[in-house]
């Protein structure tokens, strides 16, 4: 699945990384707890989250998460967008709630971090 597929499926708006929509997304992770993202996500995941502070971008950076989608229409603040842009990390916003976002992506074939096998 590409990031563009994610955008279509979630009817999402792109706030950073418009040129990176063809990147491949291998798995997904839906999480509001950054501690868990740090502990359990794998590299090359898409992170879906309701948190919008810059630490979300930092967490993604450290764990090699390749893109972030904010759920339920949450808008990231300027610092968050700036940091994401400086790291080349695409940011999306979907109006869908977390559960439905995850559900749609999973139904379309995107696997979770614990299922993904190289």
């Amino acid at each position, binding site marked *: 699945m590409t990031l563009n597929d994610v955008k279509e499926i979630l009817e999402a708006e792109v706030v950073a990384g418009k040129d990176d929509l063809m990147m491949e997304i291998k798995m997904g992770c839906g999480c509001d707890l*950054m*501690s868990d993202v*740090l502990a359990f996500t794998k590299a090359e995941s898409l992170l879906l989250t309701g948190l919008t*502070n810059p*630490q979300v971008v*930092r967490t993604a*950076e*450290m764990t090699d998460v390749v893109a972030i989608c904010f759920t339920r229409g949450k808008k990231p603040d300027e610092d968050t967008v700036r940091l994401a842009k400086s790291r080349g990390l695409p940011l999306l916003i979907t109006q869908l709630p977390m559960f439905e976002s995850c559900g749609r992506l999973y139904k379309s074939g995107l696997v979770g971090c614990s299922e993904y096998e190289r």
Partner: protein
Amino acid sequence: MNDDTNKVTQLVEGREITRVHELQYELKIADVMTTDVITISATDSMKQLRELLRSKRISGTPVVKNRKIVGIVSIEDLIKCLANREENASIGEKMTKTVATIYDDEPLVNAVVKLNEYGIGRLPVIERGRSELVGILTKEDIIKGLLKKLEIDYQIREVRPDQEGTLFNNTLDAKMRVQFKYDIPSRDISRAGESASVLKKTLKRLGFHPQIVRRAAIIAYESEINIVLYSHGGQISAQIQPNYIKIKASDTGPGIADVEQAKKPGFSTAPEWVRELGFGAGMGIPNIMKCADKMTLKSEVGIGTVVDTIINVDSGPN
């Protein structure tokens, strides 16, 4: 060493050493020297030298007359004088009169050679033509200059344009041992992750395997978050070798009352504001343990906490 380790070593040597060597030819003395030189006059006394060395925290200084260098005097000369009770002797009597100097337009490599050859700590820099003292060069200046050119500073600037270089202190020697040090202020969550970010980039640039880089980044980031959220401030340092990475996180208190409890997943003392940021779930220390091959945590209430971790480069993903 297995194949992977060898690969890393080769990468490090092949890429970085050559670049460092190249830079020694590219950079000129004037690019890296300290221009704000502290000097002393030949008519001053050794007593005055003692005060100068102490107050400026230096170990030696050029002796100057009319902006021209006439000698050099170091802490060793001072010690000799003190031993012989000659504190009132003039600098002129006790200084070394034949001074190794270097011109400001010479390549850096000439300074490296001279410092090694003469076994000295500093080289006064002379402006070609006017023969005046325009700067001084120490090994520290050379290392700083090289690193600056290697754009490690540049990464800092990217993160924090207004504090360029003030928090960051990297040194690099010929054996490719990279040391990394970063001060972490307390409570400033907006900056948490800077040290981890720089460490991650450095490791990536040095050619470490992405999984090793990721593990080190997570350890540094979790440590940083802990220092920012729970301590009075502290420091993250890392020692990078081709076959292992050591990360040390230390803070100046308040310390952890029950260390065993802190290691248990889910144990947390985090206040609400920390939880709102997505942290404070009691996973920090357990996650550091998971990413490290070895972790030791020492803490004393009222003193501080030190977390030492080691990643063996040939140990794979987790």
